[in-house]
């Protein structure tokens, strides 16, 4: 029986998490203003916490999320079409 291997993409997860985190933090600053634009250090910490949290979620999802099933049939069950040798060959 053909075996499967699981490929994981933590860097992709972090990058998509970054995008998602920017969306969340943007909403909290200019959509529904919960995060105030005040002291730069405080603002940086708040943004880092939200974006970092979203990136962490992305990495965890990429590492431990439910794996997609393999595409296609297992290699051993693949039927390889053999061409008939042409008349006069071989």
């Amino acid at each position, binding site marked *: 029986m053909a075996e499967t291997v699981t490929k994981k993409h933590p860097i992709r997860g972090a990058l998509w998490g970054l995008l998602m985190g920017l*969306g969340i933090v*943007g909403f909290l*600053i200019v959509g529904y203003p919960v995060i105030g634009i005040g002291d730069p250090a405080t*603002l940086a910490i708040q943004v880092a916490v939200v974006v970092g949290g979203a990136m962490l979620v*992305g990495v965890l*999802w990429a590492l431990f999320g439910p*794996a997609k099933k393999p595409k296609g049939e297992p290699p051993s069950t693949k039927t390889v079409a053999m061409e008939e040798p042409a008349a006069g060959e071989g």
Partner: protein
Amino acid sequence: MGRIARLLLASGILVGIMAGPALAQVAVIDISGFVPDNFVDLNGDGVPDLGDLPPGEHGIWDDTVGALTEEEFFARIPVITDFDIDDEGSILVGPCGGVAIAYDADGLSIDAVIDYADDNPPVDVYTGDQAFTSSNPFEVDTTGTIAYFGFTKEEGANWSTEGTMPGVVYAGQPALHDYQWTILVLDVAADFGGDPNALDENHNAGLVLLGEELPFPFSAKIKAKGAVIDLWGPDRLPDFDKDNIESLAAGREYCFGEGWVVTTGGAFYGAALSGLLFAAGFAGLLFNARPAQTWRG
């Protein structure tokens, strides 16, 4: 859940929706003496709404006789001194005070604050509590208008009677002279200016049409700070905060304020852009970052 309970819940929600606006706060401080007679209270919140103004009108009370300003101010505004002060980053120190009313795009009042030029922070006209705090920021519609009146108080103050700018003839009354002012947001100057003030003006009034001044509407909660220093001269003020403003003024009279402002009127644009970013990130996580099985060999 029983039928009666569901009925009660639905009724409660309906009452909340219908009665919400009616239960809105009504101003505890009457500032109607500060605006023209054609500014009437349309939305019933106790603060006069924006009326039609002929060109040149300030939209809020002003007096060309500056010496009467301070007395007139306190004659028109009842002073509240027993409000609760909770330190949430809102202060206004120095002998400067005034009134500001924020209107939405339809000219209806949405917030108003007042400061008595004392050591207490500004007061919310609607509640009588401390204004410009993190939990009670001054609400401003970026598509609307702000009407303001500001003054400098003479009693107990150390204003100069003249400046030192060459060629300027000063009138010789106590007021700001050769002053500079700056408003900082995130330690970046959002606006600044200065004037020799040869006429010794001790008050100013006007309208700020935010819909025309700002490039686009936006929603954000912003902490701003501002200062004005007497006899500073033509140079711009350097960076300042509540800890160094006194040493920066170096014996000259000054006013310093710091507080929270929340802007409305542009939430859609910020939410839409943020939503697009979030949706892109979420879709990427779902379809591009998920672990995937492949056949070995």
